[in-house]
C-alpha cells in the first residue's frame, strides 16, 4: 500500500465582490484509483477499473463547479450552501470538516446548509452514486483556501507583517509579536470590491488535523431533541395536509369519482379533485385526509401490469437472457443463476412535498436527490420557465434512491394548481409500497470454468426488468459522453443508459482469465415504477459473483479467504481482505448450523471486505415474534473498508453499519410480491426490512488508513459486499446454495394483504391497548 507523495499543486479560485469575504472555486482534477499461490490468469481491466461511474459523475460536474462559494461571516463563522441533499449519509458533517480543515476554523463554526435548486449547476446537484465527496472535495477546499488566503493578505496589510510570518489557529490570525485578528473582523475588512481570479495552494494532507479524525454529526442534537426539520415540519402558510386516493393496480388512472361532493363535505376536508395519478384530498389534518381517501368511490382505468405477477416476469427474464460462450474444452465448470426479487427503496419518512402554485410561479419544499431535474419537470408540467420554479431542498428522512424522482412533487403541483391553494402532500405508508418505486426483479447468471489452479474464464449474464434512469443519469452521461470513454458509444434511450451504468459499475476484481459480463433488460422502463436501491446493479450482480467465487473455491478445494487472497488483482485489495479476515478471526471454529462467510468488492475508488457470521440453527430460525419474520440471524459483521482518503471515520463506520442492515434484510427477509398488477405488501409488518430481532449483536468496522490523497465514495459501498458475505455464510452454514433472494420469498405469505380499495387501510384505534410493547 502506498500513500501518494504530498503535492502542492496550485488551484485557481475566485474572490467574489460581496460585503464580506466570499470565495469561489472551479474544479481541479480528480484522480482515479487503480486495480495474484494458485496460478491466476490476469484479466484485462474492465471499463469500470479504469473509468467508473464516479469519474463520469465527476467529469460531468466540472464545467460548472466554480459556482461553489464559501462565505466568511462577521461573527467569525463560515457558511456554505451544499448543492446536495443530506439524507443521513453525513455529508453536512464531512463538508463542515473539509471547510474547517482548510480554514483552520473549529468545525462548530462552519454552517453547512442545503442549496436550493440551481439550474446553472447543471449536474453538479445530483446526490447519487456515493459521489458527493468525490466530486466536491477539491472545489470546496479551493474556495475555503481562497477565503483564508484573502483574510491572511488582509491581516498582513493591517498588521504590517509579511504574510508568510502569519499563522492561523481556531479562526484567529496570529502575528509573531502576539497581535491577533479574528476571522470575523477580517471577513469584513477583506471583502473584495471586484470579483477576480486568484491562485491558491491547498493545505498538504500531512498537515490535516480535522479531516481523517472521527467527528460526531453536526446535526445530532437537533435529531435527538426532535428539532430537526423535515419537509412536513416546515410551516408554510395555507399549506394544508393533502393525500391521494390511488388506483388498485400499478399505474392505473382515475376514470370517474362518484361521490366527490359527499367527500368534500366530510369533517375538515377543504378540497377534492381528480389528478393524473388518483384523487387528491386536502384537509385540516392528515387523519381527516385518510378518512376522506377511504370514503372516495372511484372507477379506475387499468394499470400497466394488471395481468402480471412474479411468475410472468420470471419466465420473461429467463427467456431474455443473452447467450454465453461455450466453456473451454476439458475445463470444469461452475454454473449458477440467482433470482433477486423486487425490493422497495422506501425510506422511513414517506414521500413528501409542499407546493404553492401561483399564476406567475411555484414554490416547492421537498427532499430531492436531483432538484434540477425536478425543477425542469415541474416547469414542463405547469407551463412555467425554470426561473418561475423555486425549489427548496429540505433534509430527508432517508433517500436510498427513492428521492431521485419527482413523483410526489409533480402530484403536489398538480393538486395545488387544481385547488388554487398551497398543499402539504404526504404519501401513506401503503402508497410507499404499492404505488412507490421498486428495484427491479432480475436474474444474475454466472458461469466460470477452471482447470488445475487457474480460473480460465468468468461470464456473467444479468437480466433485469428495466430500471428507470431518466432522473438525471441521462444528463451526466450525455455530458460525459462528449469527453469521457463513453464517447465511443453514443447514448440513445434508457437502454443505453443502463448499459453505461452497468459497464461503469460492474467489475470482477479477480484474475479470472477471460472476463465477460453483460446486462439485458426486459420491458420498457416506464412499465413498472422502477428505480434503484442503494448500490444500483451491484446490489445483486456482485452477490452472484461472490457466491460463484465461493463455489469455485469449494470446487478447487481452497478456503474462501485463501482463494480470494490468491486471485485478487492487487495488494491494496489483499490488504483490505486481510484486515477484515484478521479482525473477524476468519476460520475460527464455529458450531454446527453456524458459519462465517467472506466477500470482497471494489467500487467508488475504494475497496471493501466483509466477514459475516450467521446462526441458522433451528432454535434461532424458529424464534417467535408477533407479525415478524425471524429466520437465520446474522450475529456478527466485520467490515474493512479502504475509501482512499477517509474524511470522517465515524461517519464512514455509520454508513457501513447501516448498509449492513440493508444487506441483511435483502438476503434474508425483505421483498415485494407482485400479484395481478399490484404489490401485496402495504406496511413495515409485511415488508420485512431488518428489525432489532434481525440485527447482529456485534458490528465492527475498520476504516483503513489513507491510501490516496482523494476521498472515495462511502454511502452505497457496504451493500454488495455485506449481502455477499451474508449469502456466503448462509450457504456454508446450511450447506445449500440458495437460488433466489431473499430466501423467504417463496414461503407461504406470513401476512394478510390489505385490500387494494380503498388504497389506504384503516387507522387502528386500539393504540392504548398495546402500550409498553
Amino acid at each position: 500500500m502506498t500513500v501518494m507523495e504530498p503535492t502542492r499543486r496550485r488551484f485557481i479560485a475566485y474572490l467574489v465582490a460581496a460585503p464580506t469575504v466570499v470565495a469561489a472555486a472551479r474544479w481541479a482534477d480528480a484522480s482515479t484509483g487503480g486495480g495474484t499461490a494458485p496460478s491466476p490468469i490476469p484479466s484485462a481491466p474492465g471499463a469500470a477499473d479504469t473509468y467508473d461511474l464516479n469519474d463520469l459523475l465527476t467529469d460531468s460536474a466540472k464545467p460548472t463547479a466554480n459556482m461553489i462559494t464559501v462565505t466568511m461571516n462577521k461573527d467569525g463563522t463560515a457558511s456554505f450552501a451544499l448543492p446536495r441533499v443530506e439524507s443521513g449519509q453525513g455529508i453536512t458533517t464531512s463538508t463542515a470538516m473539509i471547510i474547517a480543515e482548510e480554514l483552520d476554523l473549529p468545525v462548530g463554526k462552519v454552517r453547512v446548509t442545503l442549496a436550493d435548486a440551481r439550474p446553472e449547476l447543471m449536474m453538479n446537484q445530483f446526490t447519487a452514486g456515493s459521489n458527493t465527496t468525490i466530486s466536491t472535495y477539491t472545489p470546496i477546499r479551493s474556495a475555503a483556501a481562497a477565503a483564508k488566503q484573502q483574510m491572511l493578505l488582509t491581516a498582513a496589510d493591517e498588521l504590517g507583517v509579511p504574510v508568510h510570518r502569519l499563522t492561523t489557529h481556531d479562526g484567529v490570525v496570529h502575528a509573531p509579536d502576539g497581535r491577533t485578528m479574528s476571522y470575523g473582523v477580517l471577513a469584513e475588512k477583506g471583502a473584495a470590491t471586484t470579483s477576480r481570479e486568484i491562485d491558491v495552494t491547498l493545505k498538504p494532507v500531512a498537515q490535516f488535523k480535522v479531516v481523517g479524525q472521527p467527528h460526531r454529526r453536526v446535526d445530532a442534537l437537533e435529531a435527538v431533541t426532535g428539532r430537526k426539520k423535515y419537509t412536513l415540519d416546515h410551516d408554510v402558510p395555507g399549506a394544508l395536509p393533502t393525500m391521494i386516493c390511488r388506483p388498485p393496480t400499478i399505474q392505473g388512472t382515475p376514470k370517474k369519482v362518484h361521490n366527490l361532493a359527499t367527500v368534500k363535505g366530510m369533517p375538515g376536508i377543504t378540497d377534492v379533485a381528480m389528478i393524473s395519478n388518483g384523487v387528491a384530498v386536502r384537509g385540516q389534518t392528515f387523519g381527516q385526509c385518510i378518512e376522506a381517501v377511504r370514503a372516495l368511490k372511484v372507477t379506475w382505468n387499468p394499470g400497466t401490469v394488471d395481468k402480471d405477477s412474479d411468475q410472468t416476469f420470471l419466465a420473461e427474464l429467463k427467456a431474455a437472457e443473452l447467450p454465453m460462450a461455450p466453456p473451454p474444452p476439458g475445463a470444469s465448470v461452475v454454473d449458477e443463476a440467482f433470482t433477486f426479487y423486487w425490493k422497495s427503496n422506501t425510506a422511513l419518512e414517506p414521500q413528501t412535498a409542499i407546493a404553492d402554485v401561483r399564476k406567475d410561479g411555484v414554490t416547492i419544499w421537498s427532499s430531492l436527490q436531483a432538484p434540477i431535474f425536478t425543477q425542469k419537470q415541474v416547469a414542463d408540467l405547469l407551463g412555467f420557465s425554470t426561473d418561475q420554479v423555486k425549489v427548496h431542498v429540505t433534509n430527508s428522512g432517508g433517500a436510498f434512491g427513492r428521492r431521485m424522482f419527482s413523483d410526489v412533487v409533480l402530484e403536489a403541483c398538480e393538486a395545488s394548481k387544481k385547488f388554487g391553494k398551497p398543499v402539504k402532500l404526504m404519501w401513506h405508508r401503503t402508497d410507499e409500497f404499492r404505488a412507490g418505486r421498486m428495484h427491479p426483479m432480475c436474474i444474475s447468471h454466472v458461469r466460470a470454468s477452471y482447470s488445475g489452479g487457474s480460473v480460465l474464464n468468468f461470464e456473467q449474464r444479468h437480466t433485469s426488468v428495466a430500471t428507470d434512469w431518466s432522473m438525471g443519469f441521462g444528463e451526466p452521461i450525455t455530458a460525459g459522453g462528449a469527453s469521457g470513454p463513453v464517447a465511443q458509444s453514443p447514448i440513445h434511450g434508457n437502454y443505453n443508459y443502463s448499459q453505461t451504468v452497468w459497464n461503469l459499475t460492474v467489475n470482477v476484481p479477480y484474475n479470472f482469465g477471460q472476463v465477460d459480463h453483460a446486462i439485458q433488460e426486459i420491458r420498457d422502463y416506464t412499465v413498472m415504477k422502477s428505480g434503484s436501491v442503494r448500490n444500483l446493479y451491484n446490489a445483486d450482480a456482485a452477490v452472484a459473483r461472490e457466491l460463484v467465487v465461493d463455489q469455485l473455491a469449494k470446487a478447487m478445494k481452497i478456503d474462501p479467504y485463501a482463494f480470494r487472497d490468491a486471485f485478487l488483482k492487487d495488494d491494496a485489495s489483499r490488504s483490505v481482505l486481510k484486515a477484515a479476515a484478521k479482525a473477524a478471526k476468519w476460520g475460527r471454529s464455529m458450531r454446527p448450523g453456524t458459519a462465517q462467510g467472506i466477500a470482497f468488492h471494489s467500487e467508488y475508488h475504494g475497496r471493501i471486505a466483509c466477514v459475516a457470521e450467521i446462526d441458522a440453527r433451528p432454535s434461532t430460525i424458529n424464534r417467535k415474534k408477533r407479525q415478524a419474520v425471524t429466520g437465520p440471524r446474522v450475529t456478527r459483521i466485520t467490515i474493512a473498508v479502504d475509501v482512499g482518503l477517509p474524511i470522517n471515520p465515524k461517519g464512514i463506520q455509520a454508513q457501513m453499519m447501516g448498509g449492513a442492515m440493508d444487506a441483511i434484510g435483502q438476503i434474508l427477509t425483505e421483498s415485494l410480491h407482485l400479484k395481478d398488477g399490484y404489490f401485496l405488501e402495504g406496511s413495515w409488518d409485511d415488508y420485512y426490512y431488518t428489525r432489532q430481532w434481525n440485527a447482529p449483536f456485534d458490528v465492527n468496522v475498520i476504516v483503513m488508513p489513507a491510501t490516496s490523497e482523494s476521498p472515495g465514495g462511502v454511502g452505497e459501498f457496504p451493500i454488495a459486499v455485506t449481502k455477499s458475505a451474508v449469502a456466503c455464510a448462509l450457504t456454508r452454514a446450511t450447506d445449500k446454495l440458495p437460488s433466489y433472494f431473499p430466501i423467504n420469498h417463496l414461503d407461504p405469505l406470513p401476512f394478510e394483504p390489505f385490500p387494494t380499495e380503498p388504497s389506504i387501510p384503516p387507522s387502528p384505534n386500539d393504540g392504548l391497548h398495546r402500550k409498553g410493547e
Partner: protein
Amino acid sequence: MPRHTFKLNGKRVHVNVPNDVHLLWVLRDVLGVNGPKYGCGLDVCKACTSHINGKAFNPCCVPVSKISADDEITTIEGLPDTVGKDLHPMQEAWLEMDVAQCGYCQPGQIMAAVAKVKEAKAAGREITDADLDDIRNICRCGTYHRIREAIQAGAKAM
C-alpha cells in the same frame, strides 16, 4: 366541534377537533408539536412513539377522544423536563454514541428506549438482549447496533 383537554409536556392544552381524529394529527397538524414523526399510521413503525402517563404508546392509533383530561402525554420535546435537565440521560447517551443518521426515527427510538428501561427497572432487572430484540421501531438507516449500545449506556445513567 368537541373540545378535548389533556396535559402535554407538562402544560394543560385544549383543542377543538372531532373525536375520531388520531392524536398524532392533533399533535402535529393542530398543536404544531413535530417531534413525533409519521412513518406508517398503522402502529407498526413506531416513529411517533411518545409516552402516556410514563408508558410508551403510539399516538397514530389513538383517537383523541380516548385521551382523558388527567392523562399526561409526553413527546420527545417534553422528555428532558421529566428529569429536570436540558437533556434526558438517554438523549445524552444517544449523542455520546453518535447514534442518529437521518434522524427521522430517533425521537421515537429514544422514547421507546426510555420506556423499555423504566419497565426493566420497575421489574428490578437490567436491560437484556431479549428486551432490545423486542423493540419494534424501524430505523431505515440501520442504526440498530448503536441504538443497542446507547440504550445500555443510557440505562446506567437513568
